[in-house]
């Protein structure tokens, strides 16, 4: 047998330290509140048109700690659970330091609140930040909760990661007409625009043009270059075509154009462009559309060529900075792009792939909030200016105008803006031409796994109706970054993705320091170089930083090597990527946010830098061991590599495959999958769609939601009464502590045909197992009513049941029985049973009588309910508006919560509980995408049994296997059976057999033999009905089964009134499987 290096067996040990799962949201938000937010404010100054002396400027912005504003004067520190329960927003005030003019003086004030911002849980501003397990428990939070979401009006909201094409990068593609073009989306803080450089086939051969919205007609690239100050034709030719004569021979056609248009100098070129802009402007104003694209001075008194120069400098390719009309960088950029487009024309393989993941950026909560904040802050300032103007216009003011303390300092603009955006998910920012819906989603709390799965979800911006397969297909560049299995079926298939286990999303890193380092390492600045130097020199590479040309260098590989070494020693940001491209002859350095990257172990000279000693600090104490592992990135053992840089890497899967050519070693092959897929045991043995199905089903399986599940007041909570640890687990499940919050039960499964009620994947359950509590679940539903106070002084009230004497039939009156669960205060009692139509909260609202104003004292009435005392002689009339229970099966009152929210609405929340045992038609699934409804429940004496007395809990039809090819389930059963015999949890991590994280099926079989079972996991069964030996061996053993949320009880709807046709009860059944079963049993 192959001798494995010892290291291989234990490499998974470093996994927990790189599990940045769900942390990407938190990192992004932290970056926003700590860094990004401070960049927004200093640019803002409020000035008045009335009083030129007046001004207000911001010196600093920072976020305080979370609090709830009880009323205008008091606020209390908030905990997340309190906000969930009270329907509040978990937010913290934003403070600013301001400098402003108060009368004649200039005043500086610090810590002035300007509004509130919702705080992400577990972020640096959250009270849960870096809290220990016991501290979290004291705050009634689940220690395994991922964080990364917001609580807005009591609802948990996640800002999903949005996938986009990266900005400020060129994409060489063929447009709709099949013309080769380079599309560049420029995005800066001021504006966003699209520009493309196309190679058009004309009667004179191929010619290159630049297209931009502002520029009306397509402008020949040669003219653009001339307008950018490159007047000499030779210079232009060198810039574009000096490297490759084939490119030059095509570009030569374009060189003729300036002279055809009588453009020779820069001024002529600018005039040419200026005319095009004016023509475009005229054409548009005829249409009645206001030309908003560019209006630098408001009054258009400047000449056409000046306007053109401004447009070229600030609008066209606006992301390339132009200072003092120095066009060097932009010229070089245009020249490079032109060269690339022509090269792609010559060789189609040079076209870029839009779906390549290196061209994608993920937009996270921090970035979206930052845009929103900027927009809201600008609105706040313009509102402030308008109000200040009004105040300052008044000639005789009684007091000195203090803007910060006046009533025009309104803090609700920001607070409401944030709350509205997050709670609706509509991000409408006109300034950035952004209008997106569905940015946020309610955090799914169906199961623990579903909550975690949601935090890794990536949404893409493509329209869902598009039939194209390109964006939906799995891209090789997604390896290790996105989970290949976890995507929904149906219309969003492939568009909604999930991050892989170790994938991390970067945040913006400092550009200037990176640029500085590049220059220090020998990058030559552009001003010193001409086209020949850039192109014809064999080793000269252009250096790009975040898509911008910053210079060129003659020894590219040395530069890349030096930069990587600096990154490994943390002298530049650890997420900076360096990517050399020998065909483009360019080095791409990226330090922008939103790139997906993943950790890899560095290997050099055929040896992994992760030495066995690092993993086996047996002699050292645990703390030092953790420390050593935690510093693997700083000590140059592990580094983060993004999608682009992976192209320069040669990554070995295993240590014994390492050669001198290899640069990296995978941390663990199981990390190509995501967390949700980690639920599947032996996923690498399954047919791949089965893993995808399981990823969808794992999110619907019941179990424990969180350790604080019974403290929470979710509108719907499913929970298993006896959840169990899976007998076959995986390293990934250990990482997310699935054993503490499991989502299913270990069932003894027999794969055999039984009774005929098991067709079409239906399963058969053992009645006695159900009697003993197998897969029994609790369903808790929330009922809520608010007791309001109205402007005219009236109140809602809750009131106890009416006296028995008012019912004719007395205690047997059905109307009276509706009140049976009520206490004297009009709210149901904990522990009472609720039948259909029972009243939960007996609320009464006043009948509108707007002329009467009542005194607004609330007092406790004699019967115990809350009611207001009314002015004598004018008793308020009430009508009932009760909250009643509507469901065919009775429930029990679980909890009652009386509280008030921020707006002083009195809230009554009632949790209603139902415990359900599995019944016919309920849906179950193993962890291998094998779902099935329960077809029959058979008592134990009729079930088959073995001679040692084992009787299956679940019987499944063997026809479920051949077409599904879920070999993983078969191995799970065998490994689980061996584990049960031995008394341990078996392991089934993906690709883990050779790495000590999954059991070999061979070993499991051997173990089974040792315990006296058949090595293939089959048992001899006796028929429970006849007592005869069954004529086949039956595959039987423990398999982890999940109960899915689809239950017959919830799908059963009937109406109480209306025409009744014969004996048929109209049952609305959602799943076709239920329909089949229903027909079988009616």
């Amino acid at each position, binding site marked *: 047998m192959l001798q494995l290096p010892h290291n291989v067996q234990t490499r998974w040990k470093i996994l927990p330290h790189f599990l940045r799962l769900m942390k990407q949201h938190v990192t992004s938000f932290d970056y926003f509140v700590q860094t990004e937010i401070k960049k927004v404010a200093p640019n803002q100054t409020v000035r008045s048109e009335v009083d030129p002396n007046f001004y207000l400027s911001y010196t600093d912005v920072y976020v305080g700690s979370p609090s709830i504003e009880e009323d205008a004067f008091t606020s209390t520190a908030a905990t997340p659970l309190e906000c969930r329960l009270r329907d509040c927003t978990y937010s913290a005030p934003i403070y600013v330091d301001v400098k402003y003019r108060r009368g004649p003086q200039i005043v500086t004030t610090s810590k002035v609140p300007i509004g509130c911002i919702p705080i992400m849980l577990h972020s640096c501003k959250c009270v849960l930040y870096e809290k220990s397990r016991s501290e979290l428990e004291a705050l009634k939070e689940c220690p395994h909760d991922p964080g990364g979401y917001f609580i807005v009006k009591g609802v948990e909201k996640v800002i999903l990661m949005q996938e986009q094409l990266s900005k400020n990068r060129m994409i060489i593609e063929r447009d709709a007409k099949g013309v080769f073009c380079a599309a560049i989306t420029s995005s800066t803080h001021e504006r966003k625009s699209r520009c493309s450089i196309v190679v058009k086939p004309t009667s004179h051969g191929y010619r290159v043009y630049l297209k931009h919205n502002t520029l009306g007609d397509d402008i020949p690239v040669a003219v653009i270059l001339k307008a950018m100050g490159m007047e000499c034709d030779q210079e232009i030719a060198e810039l574009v075509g000096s490297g490759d004569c084939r490119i030059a021979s095509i570009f030569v056609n374009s060189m003729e154009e300036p002279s055809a248009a009588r453009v020779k100098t820069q001024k002529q070129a600018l005039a040419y462009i200026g005319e095009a802009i004016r023509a475009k402007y005229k054409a548009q104003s005829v249409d009645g559309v206001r030309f908003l694209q560019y209006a630098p001075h408001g009054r258009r008194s400047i000449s056409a060529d000046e306007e053109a120069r401004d447009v070229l400098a600030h609008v066209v390719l606006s992301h390339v900075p132009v200072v003092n009309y120095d066009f060097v960088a932009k010229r070089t950029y245009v020249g490079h792009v032109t060269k690339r487009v022509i090269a792609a024309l010559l060789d189609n393989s040079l076209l870029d792939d839009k779906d390549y993941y290196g061209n994608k950026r993920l937009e996270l909560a921090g970035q979206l909030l930052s845009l929103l904040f900027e927009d809201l802050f600008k609105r706040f300032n313009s509102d402030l200016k308008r109000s200040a103007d009004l105040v300052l216009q008044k000639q005789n003011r009684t007091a000195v105008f203090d803007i910060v303390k006046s009533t025009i300092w309104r803090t609700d603009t920001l607070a409401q803006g944030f709350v509205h955006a997050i709670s609706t998910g509509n991000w409408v920012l006109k300034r950035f031409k952004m209008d997106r819906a569905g940015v946020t989603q309610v955090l799914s709390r169906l199961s623990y796994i579903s909550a975690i799965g949601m935090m890794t979800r990536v949404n893409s911006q493509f329209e869902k109706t598009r039939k194209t397969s390109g964006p939906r297909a799995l891209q090789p560049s997604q390896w290790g970054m996105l989970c290949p299995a976890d995507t929904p079926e149906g219309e969003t298939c492939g568009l909604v993705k999930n991050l892989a286990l170790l994938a991390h999303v970067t945040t913006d890193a400092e550009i200037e320091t990176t640029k500085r380092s590049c220059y220090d390492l020998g990058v030559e600045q552009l001003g010193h170089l001409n086209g020949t130097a850039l192109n014809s020199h064999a080793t000269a590479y252009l250096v790009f930083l975040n898509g911008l040309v910053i210079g060129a260098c003659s020894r590219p590989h040395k530069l890349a090597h030096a930069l990587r070494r600096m990154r490994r020693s943390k002298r530049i940001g650890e997420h900076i990527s360096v990517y050399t491209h020998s065909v483009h002859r360019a080095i791409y350095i990226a330090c922008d946010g939103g790139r997906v990257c993943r950790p890899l172990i560095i290997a050099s000279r055929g040896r992994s830098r992760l030495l066995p000693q690092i993993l086996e600090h047996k002699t050292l104490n645990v703390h030092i061991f953790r420390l050593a592992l935690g510093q693997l990135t700083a000590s140059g053992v592990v580094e983060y590599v993004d999608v682009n840089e992976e192209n320069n890497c040669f990554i070995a899967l295993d240590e014994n495959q390492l050669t001198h050519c290899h640069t990296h070693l995978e941390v663990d092959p199981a990390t190509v999958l995501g967390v949700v897929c980690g639920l599947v045991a032996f996923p690498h043995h399954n047919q791949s769609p089965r893993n995808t199905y399981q990823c969808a089903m794992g999110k619907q399986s019941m179990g424990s939601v969180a350790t604080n599940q*019974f403290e929470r007041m979710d509108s719907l909570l499913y929970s298993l*009464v006896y959840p169990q640890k899976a007998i076959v687990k995986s390293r990934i499940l250990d990482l997310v502590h699935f054993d503490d919050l499991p989502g299913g039960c270990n069932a003894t499964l027999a794969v055999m045909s039984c009774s005929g009620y098991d067709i079409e994947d239906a399963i058969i359950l053992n*009645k*006695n*197992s159900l*009697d*003993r*509590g197998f897969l*029994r679940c*609790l369903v808790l539903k929330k009922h809520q009513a608010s007791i309001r106070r109205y402007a005219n002084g009236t109140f809602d009230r809750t009131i106890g049941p009416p006296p028995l004497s008012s019912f004719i039939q007395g205690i047997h009156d059905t109307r009276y029985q509706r009140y049976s669960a009520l206490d004297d205060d009009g709210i149901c009692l904990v*522990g009472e049973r609720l039948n259909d139509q029972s009243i939960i909260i007996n609320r009464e609202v006043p009948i509108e009588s707007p002329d009467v104003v009542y005194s607004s004292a609330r007092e406790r009435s004699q019967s115990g309910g809350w009611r207001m005392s009314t002015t004598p002689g004018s008793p308020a009339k009430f009508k009932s508006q009760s909250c009643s229970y509507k469901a065919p099966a009775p429930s*029990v009152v*679980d909890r009652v919560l009386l509280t008030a929210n921020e707006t002083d609405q009195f809230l009554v929340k009632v949790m209603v*509980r139902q*415990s359900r045992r599995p019944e016919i038609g309920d849906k179950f699934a193993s962890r291998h995408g094998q779902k099935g409804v329960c077809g029959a429940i058979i*008592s*134990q*004496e009729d079930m088959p*049994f*073995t*001679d*040692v*007395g084992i009787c299956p809990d679940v019987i499944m039809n063997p026809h479920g296997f051949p077409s599904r090819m879920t070999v993983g389930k078969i191995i799970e059963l065998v490994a689980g059976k061996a584990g049960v015999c031995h008394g341990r949890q078996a392991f089934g991590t993906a690709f883990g057999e050779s790495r000590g994280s999954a059991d070999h099926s061979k070993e499991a079989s051997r173990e089974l*033999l*040792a*315990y*006296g*079972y*058949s090595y293939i996991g089959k*048992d*001899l069964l*006796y*028929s*429970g*009905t*006849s*007592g*005869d*030996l069954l004529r086949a*061996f039956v595959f039987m053993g423990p398999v982890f089964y999940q109960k899915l949320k689809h239950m017959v009880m919830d799908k059963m709807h009937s109406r109480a009134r209306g025409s009744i046709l014969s004996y048929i009860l109209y049952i609305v059944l959602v799943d076709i499987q239920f329909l089949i079963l229903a027909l079988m049993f009616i």
Partner: protein
Amino acid sequence: MSCYSVAADQRARRPEVEVLSLEENQMSFEVKKTDASMANALRRVIIAEVVTMAIDLVTFEENTSCIDDEIIAHRLGLIPIKYAFKPGKTKLREDVSNDEAAAMSSERDIQRRFRFTRDCDCDGYCDWCACTFKLHVKYDEVIKNVPEHEKNQPYTVTSINLESDDPDVFPVHFVSERERNTSSEPGIAIVKLAKGQEIKLSCIAKLGCGKEHAKWTPVSKCVFRPKPTISWDDNAVRALPPNLRNIIVDVCPAGVLGYEDERDRTSIVVKNEAAILDFTKDIQDLTKQLSPQNKPMFHASASTTDFVFEVESLGGVPVDDCVLCGLNEIKRKLTNLQVAVAEVAAEQA
């Protein structure tokens, strides 16, 4: 009518029972000269129709524990309840007819003491058809008696905390009466209480059988297997070289096959009869290959008349009573059938 008459005497079977082992809660016996359907009937009846007692109705007065009422009620229901007949002390039902008494296995039978609630003419329940249990545990009180080092831990309420109002009925304890004070049997856990929590409830245990709910099933295991008839071609085995004999022994899991004499190692015998049927085919295939005549040296087949039973009681009913009650139940059913058949016969005549 002849078609209903019992088979002729000479063909009637005379089944025999041989008890192989009998311990407090475990029993193994062999039933001979019968058939699989009879054996299976006995198994089914023991599981589903032996009458036992289990908690069926729980009234909560106080439950501040973290477990919901219905779950606690469910857990209480699954606790096995033991009825111990004490001769002379236990007052038995007086309305038991002689026929009924004859149908019961002994005086120890629970039905001599209790009626089914559905057969009882009381309103709700009474001493003759039910037994009441009380459970009242208050953490702050019980924690005083707990050793210092366990004071911070939750207190586990177990079946030991259940107080019965009938001295003959109590939750199962697996220690005898005498050992009760000295042993540290923890009992069956019901719920854990933390500081400030309290549980107070009363339960009513009623008669029932496994058909209604698994909590009334008296046994945890009740299985039978046909006794295998085994034959070895001893001469052929002896003729094999020793290493091939080892291969034969190793074809089955450890302990299934072995040598008759460990030193001699010439003849192979079956050490574990229960498992041999699973591996018969493997042994046959192997020995057939090894045999010069291409003939298997081993034959084993399941007997169609003899069966080995293994029964394990949950403790509520003694294991031998489980079996006896089962047999009586079959007898009662057969008698009913006989009566019904006779009635039909009389009608048709």
